[in-house]
């Protein structure tokens, strides 16, 4: 068998196999357990490098395809593949996982179960980004919930049960609606064409070629069902309140993966499913969704500004950043969408790094309250320097990664509506306010709290977790082509589909017959 067909399966299931192998380890041998988990995550990462090295940027459509019948009687296939939009999201998951495991070195309590859940989570994450069968996608989507539920609920902070429940309930509500919508699509496609399948390309193709058509009302309902699932996951204002709680209670690695990868599933879903499957409704509701995105940008930033807890601050900043991504997606311009995908990667890198950094002083001081700190630069100069670079990346300093995505999103949005871009751009000011204010209160000043006197600077392991992210921050900011090129064809493809099936120029959407 050809390796290209095997590779996605390898990347997806190596962690799961590793998780099963981990069960054989003796419970007390924490060192061996975490070393093994790290090795599995690293091997997965190396496998995933194959995807980008052998990715053909010129090719449209999915690559590294594998399509095997799974439950033939129901038309469910094991159908996987990636395109220019998902390839880097898979890599984001595989690169953050080893770092998250490195950041979990202090986990001693039930370490075996912890690392089993971590690895299972990785299988879920990679699966979501590469599943091309709607049913398979749904399975991965829900599977990922379970390990995250336990990671928060068992290894979390004081209010971990509340946070874990909130996280699961919010996501489940969206998930169930999405399942109903998937079934509706399956049946209406099956009834119209005679072929009952959950295959995403098949259904999409049939919709594009008008082999079956959704009545406006049906399209609206289906769009809303998918949209709600994704909007909660993003999270888009006003569905965001689970996020701060989940982040605050989750262990560091949980926060890193939650912000870094899990939130991207929402925006990825919008791009992969909402836009191409329901182009008319996407266009019709774009102004409204953009409005929510802009509210999220400003609201998230303002609320982040007044948080006394560092993790909550970063969590609300995610609401703001994800608003940019949604705004870019619903600009229906190549610039805006490429910027949105770029911003997904950026947010994963920068916010992942921010959570790692917060985790590092949390481990030393067991508090995340900004007021407890101050003058950290006097004791931890290397930490302070790294924190500064990550902060600058997060506020979109040109030359670092955040700017490229933010600028492209604004560029695409401005082409559609200058007013939207202008409101969104205020986020540029506000992000500087909340991040620099936090930085000043935590890092600068004299050491006033005696508990901070004995802080030690970050050690080699901690430096190892941060260095890859710092390199990405600079690389993605200075030389974006290797990241933008592969997505070009896929985004153009997507836009063509969205515009053609809709039968006109993008900017005349509002005149569509209902």
């Amino acid at each position, binding site marked *: 068998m050809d390796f290209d067909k095997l590779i996605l399966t390898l990347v997806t299931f190596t962690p799961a196999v590793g998780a099963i192998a981990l069960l054989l380890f003796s419970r007390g041998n924490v060192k061996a357990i975490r070393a093994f988990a790290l090795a599995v995550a690293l091997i997965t990462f190396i496998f995933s490098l194959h995807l980008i090295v052998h990715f053909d940027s010129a090719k449209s459509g999915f690559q590294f395809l594998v399509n095997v019948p799974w439950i033939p009687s129901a038309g469910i296939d094991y159908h996987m593949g990636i395109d220019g939009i998902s390839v880097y999201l898979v890599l984001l998951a595989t690169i953050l996982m080893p770092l998250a495991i490195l950041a979990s070195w202090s986990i001693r309590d039930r370490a075996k179960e912890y690392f089993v859940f971590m690895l299972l989570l990785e299988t879920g994450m990679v699966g979501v980004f590469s599943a091309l069968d709607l049913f398979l996608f749904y399975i991965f989507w829900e599977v990922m919930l379970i390990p995250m539920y336990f990671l928060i609920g068992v290894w979390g902070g004081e209010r971990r049960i509340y946070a874990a429940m909130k996280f699961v309930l919010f996501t489940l509500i969206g998930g169930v609606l999405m399942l109903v919508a998937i079934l509706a699509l399956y049946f209406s496609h099956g009834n119209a064409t005679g072929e009952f399948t959950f295959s995403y390309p098949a259904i999409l193709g049939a919709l594009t070629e008008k082999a079956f058509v959704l009545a406006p009302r049906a399209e609206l309902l289906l769009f809303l069902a998918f949209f709600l699932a994704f909007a909660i996951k993003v999270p888009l204002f006003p569905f965001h309140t689970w996020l701060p709680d989940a982040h605050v209670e989750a262990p560091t690695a949980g926060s890193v993966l939650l912000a870094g990868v899990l939130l991207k599933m929402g925006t990825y879903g919008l791009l992969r499913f909402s836009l191409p499957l329901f182009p008319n409704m996407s266009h019709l509701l774009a102004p409204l969704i953009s409005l929510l995105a802009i509210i999220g940008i400003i609201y998230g930033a*303002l609320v982040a500004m007044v948080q006394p807890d560092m993790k909550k601050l970063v969590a609300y900043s995610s609401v703001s950043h994800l608003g940019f991504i949604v705004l870019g997606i619903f600009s229906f311009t190549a*610039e805006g969408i*490429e910027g949105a995908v770029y911003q997904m990667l950026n947010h994963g890198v920068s916010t992942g790094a921010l959570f790692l950094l917060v985790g590092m002083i949390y481990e030393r001081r067991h508090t995340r309250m900004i007021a407890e700190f101050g003058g950290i630069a006097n004791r931890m100069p290397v930490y302070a320097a790294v924190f500064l670079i990550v902060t600058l990346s997060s506020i979109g300093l040109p030359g670092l990664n955040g700017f490229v995505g933010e600028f492209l999103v604004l560029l695409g949005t401005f082409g559609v509506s200058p007013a939207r871009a202008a409101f969104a751009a205020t986020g*540029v000011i506000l992000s500087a306010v909340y991040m*620099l204010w936090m930085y*000043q209160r935590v890092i600068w*000043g004299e050491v006033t709290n005696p508990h901070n006197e004995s802080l030690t600077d970050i050690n080699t392991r901690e430096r190892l977790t941060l260095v890859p992210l710092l390199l990405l921050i600079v690389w993605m900011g200075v030389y974006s082509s290797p990241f933008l090129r592969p997505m070009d064809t896929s*985004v153009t493809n997507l836009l063509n589909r969205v515009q053609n099936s809709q039968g006109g120029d993008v900017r005349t959407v509002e005149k569509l017959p209902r």
Partner: protein
Amino acid sequence: MVSFLWLIPLLPLAGAVINGVFGKRLSRGVIGFIASGSVALSFAISLTAFLQMLQLPESELPIVRNYFTWIQAGSFQASVGLLLDHLSGLMILIVTGVGLLIHVYSTAYMHDDPGFYRFFAYLNLFMFSMLTLVLANNYLLMFVGWEGVGLCSYLLIGFWFKKQSATDAGKKAFIVNRVGDFGFILAALLIFWTFKSVDYQQVFSAAAAMPADQLGMIGTLTAICLLMFVGATGKSAQIPLYVWLPDAMEGPTPVSALIHAATMVTAGVYMVARSAVLFDRAPGALLVVAVIGAATSLIAASIALVQTDIKKVLAYSTVSQLGYMFLACGAGAYAAGVFHLMTHAFFKALLFLGAGSVIHGMGGIQDIDKMGGLRKEMPWTFRTFLIGTLAIAGIPGLAGFFSKDMILAATWHSPNFGKVLWAIGLFVAGMTSFYMFRLLILTFTGRPRYTHHDVHHVHESPAPMLIPLIVLAFFSVIAGYVGIPPALTGHHEAIAEFLNLGTPAAEGAEHASVALEWMLMSASILAAGIGAFLAYLLYVLRPELPARVSSSAAALYSILTNKYYVDEIYNAVVIAPIVVTARQFLWRFVDAAIIDGAINGIGQSVRSSANTLRHLQTGNVRAYAGWILFGSILIVAWFLR
């Protein structure tokens, strides 16, 4: 050397990286050598490239080098590329030249600071950013330098990070600049969607080819220019965003000289001059630039009259002089603005470094009420400071006179309220002369007002600090001779022809009579003279007068010493309401009470209804049978209805 253009910004960047990463393990000598050496090399390359450029015929300019694509998505493309022409050539000479002197000066000034390596890493990073800003060949790369210098300014203002006031000032500078950058970003977006490019050459040629009388086009260009100018008011400290610059004096004094006087703050002027093609086609925007420039120069100068901190006087003076440069640009005399940018870079860097020398010698005291008579202890600092004062005050023969005269003449000829703006400019010239001589007199002459209890040993500064002062003093004298007015030579200022910015500026000037030129020149000399004389009168002849003046106009005096309460107003009107709204309304109310309240409410009602319904589940078989019967009756009744 033109082929080594990329080395000009990159050498200081290399210095920054080396000092930033390994500086902790290097000796001070090595750190200073790397930092100054990289800038010296950069200066040498800039100078040879400049001279080479002068040999080239006009048709081969500008020299453009594209290195690689930075961002490409959809139809958008931005490259990393540099552009050398007369304007950017002059700018890199100023930046690397003045920068080199200040690096040398800093090796002595910062010698005992524990953050020595950090300081030079930041300073080198600043050089990189500033050189990127002026050499970029497109607006987006310019923005990299633009925000980069803002970052370095932030880091250097907050350099002494243990001091709350320093970190406050740094944060304020960054955030206020971000407000301006908001405008810059929108301008860049509008430029792209108007011209389908952010590359200077493509934008300017497209703009030049546009039908200028089309109203829609004028509107778009005006919007672009005004948005860009919003960016400029941030970086170049103009109304309403000037408030960060006086606070920026919290940083080490060499920083104030390099960043907050000579180079970075002139970035806005550079941007307007660079975009002359656009501004020329947006007369409304030009008027705004001129009015804001004039108003800023007037207000800042009035605050400078009463400040007692030596650096604050110079800071407000800088704001005021930047206003002057914008006044020139607003009159369409971009070359005059850049000319003043250059002369100001020399004499203001000189004055700040002189102030640094004084502070160094006084052991950290900055209050001019506690100085006096320093000319004896610090003769070289005094001599060079005197030259700086004469230059900025507009005394004939020194650099400031020529550039100021060129601005005032251009303003007079400007069709947009030229005479009014000229009168304001003239008045400001008088004020400038007054507050500078006041500063000079109070610092260096008379009897010492400090006791030896305050200051142990007042001393002259070491050679590495004095040599830059002498070099800058030299240029503060001669730099003006590239702009000798037409009244003296019979043809245009050499600098104007050299820079050749915008449409041949101020056509009125062409026809202006020599008599008018002389009249305008005399007026500005007179203004400078009156200012100087008043300072002499108040602080030397009748030293009891200032107290009497301030008490007889107490209200005005306290408005000025409190800087028109602008910071307080911003705080009350903008900052406090935003913070309170965010905390009390958005977070505590919308997020916690409404959204989470609704969700928890749903949870509660599910739980309570389940609680009620739970009582139906009694385990009593007869009760169940009863309910089944009841249900069946209902169903039957429904079918029979």
